[in-house]
């Protein structure tokens, strides 16, 4: 359980994190989503006490990180794959980290095996690829068998196998009742991994809800309508909560209504429809509309086919 209250970080005149409050619950994977520079990493560094908040506070399991008696057993953090001395071997790095808490050699061997580092454990970290560095970072985070995991961009630099492995690992860790807080800028990855999403933009929380809610809320119900009678149909559909946009003659994107209502309206007026398609939004769409500062709820049609809604469908898996 991670709780932030009014958490703020300013660097000079620049406000990186602007009074955010949120809580990360155990037993689920909570995604922390935002564009670059939104304040994700700064927030995560403040959680583990590396950066001092300008204002506000953040606690892990009810206490500030610095007051935890066994920090590595309470929290495992991957904040930066490069938080390792490049001149030291992976095995020695993990041994040194383990030594701080009296964690045994067997556990060090376990995390090396678990993260697939056995073949390179004796090599110096300076020669590691980004993916290997991430695996070592994850190994470090798992070392203390912690109840809470904080992973900043864990799939960054991993190959598809590694991505799948991380996804399964964090889902498994959450299923054991652990708190998993995971940042990513990869929306599709988040859709597959997270149960709950906190969206941050310009240092403020934009959304904090289950994945399905985020998708639903941001998109409303968009329906694509193709008709030769576009002008008449728009007149008929006009209403307070309904937005209609058009990118080419005869093609409408209607938000705030349903396919059924639109179909019935058209039938009543005897208007011909060539297409009537509810658009399943992806988390990407949701995210874009959430983080688009000025153009909220304005459907910007690119004329490109909407990405397959598969990602949004998968997120609704049981948790």
């Amino acid at each position: 359980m991670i709780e932030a209250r009014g958490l703020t970080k300013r660097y000079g005149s620049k406000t990186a994190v602007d009074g955010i409050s949120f809580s990360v619950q155990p037993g689920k994977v909570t995604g922390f989503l935002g564009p670059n520079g939104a304040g994700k990493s700064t927030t995560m560094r403040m959680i583990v006490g590396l950066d001092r908040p300008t204002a506000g506070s953040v606690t892990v399991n009810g206490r500030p990180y610095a007051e935890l008696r066994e920090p590595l057993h309470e929290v495992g953090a991957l904040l930066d794959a490069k938080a390792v001395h490049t001149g030291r071997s992976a095995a020695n790095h993990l041994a040194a980290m383990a030594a701080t808490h009296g964690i045994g050699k067997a556990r060090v061997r376990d995390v090396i095996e678990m993260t697939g580092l056995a073949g390179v454990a004796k090599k110096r970290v300076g020669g590691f690829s980004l993916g290997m560095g991430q695996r070592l970072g994850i190994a470090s985070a798992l070392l203390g068998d912690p109840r809470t995991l904080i992973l900043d961009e864990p799939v960054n630099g991993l190959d598809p196998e590694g991505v799948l492995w991380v996804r399964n690992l964090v889902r498994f860790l959450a299923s054991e009742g652990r708190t998993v807080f995971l940042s990513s800028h990869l929306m599709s990855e988040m859709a597959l991994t997270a149960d709950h999403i906190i969206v941050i933009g310009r240092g403020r929380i934009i959304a904090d809800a289950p994945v399905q809610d985020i998708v639903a809320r941001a998109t409303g119900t968009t329906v694509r309508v193709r008709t030769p009678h576009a002008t008449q149909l728009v007149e008929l559909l006009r209403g307070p909560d309904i937005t209609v946009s058009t990118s080419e003659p005869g093609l409408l994107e209607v938000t705030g209504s349903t396919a059924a209502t639109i179909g019935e309206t058209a039938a009543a007026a005897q208007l011909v429809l060539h297409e009537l398609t509810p658009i399943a939004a992806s988390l990407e769409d949701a995210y874009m509309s959430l983080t688009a500062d000025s153009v909220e709820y304005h459907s910007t049609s690119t004329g490109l086919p909407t990405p397959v809604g598969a990602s949004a469908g998968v997120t609704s898996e049981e948790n």
Partner: protein
Amino acid sequence: MSTTTLPAATTTLPAAPRPARSGLTFGRLVASEWIKFRSLRSTWWTLAFALGGMVGISLIFGIGIRASAVSASDEDSMLGVLGLTFGYTAAQLALAVLGALTITGEYSTGMIRSTLAAAPRRLPALWAKLLVLTMVTVVVSFIGLALSYLVTLPLLSGTGVTVDLGNDETVRALLGVPLYLTAITLMAFAIGAIVRHSAGAITTTLGIMLVVPMVFSILGIFVSWAPRVGAYMPTTAGEQIMSFGGIAGAGMVSDYSLSPWAGIGLLGGYVVVLLAVAAVLMRRRDA
């Protein structure tokens, strides 16, 4: 690969062994710092250079004394002691680099974030590092001194130049070597913790060691107060602990020179102040 590691993750994690008395202690931080210290190549290079410098310079003195076949006199006895202490000039360079790198290496690589995540109170980690560094420096400079003594002893026999270990002044000058070298190493460490940048910390430390005394000797040509003030500079003061027969380290003992113990005490004072600044900054700054 991942398809094989995944099942391992699901089966191993719940069974993760948890030692009965696990948790963060100062002793464990020291153990961790010792692993970190010995698992870097730069540690061994700098220590080898320090030892090599001490023994090498003693050898030069030993061979020189033997070749010139000087006769026994007070001055020659001074030469014998100087032969054993003078290696500090080389060793201090290597140890200053080691001291600085011990902490700046963590900042330049990002390791410090792992270190502080494991020890979020921060200062225990700093003191653990300091303790390991101190112990190693004391041991290595004693070894260097002992090796210097052992390699020069056969060269001195029959030359009339002796090193009298029964003489209090001789013993003080010799013991001054590990004391001085440890103080210099810790000064470099403290500067490293303040500057957090390898090149900056090493340059600053070498500047204090080499440039500051030089500036005061240049000033001494023109102004009368220069030697008086210069005597209080860190290395000039610290070198007095190795003074013997009118020579203190690489310089002469002057009217203004501090006494051996006052001198090393002052250097120690500088180190304590720098460490205090480093500690305050380490607690305050973002990592």
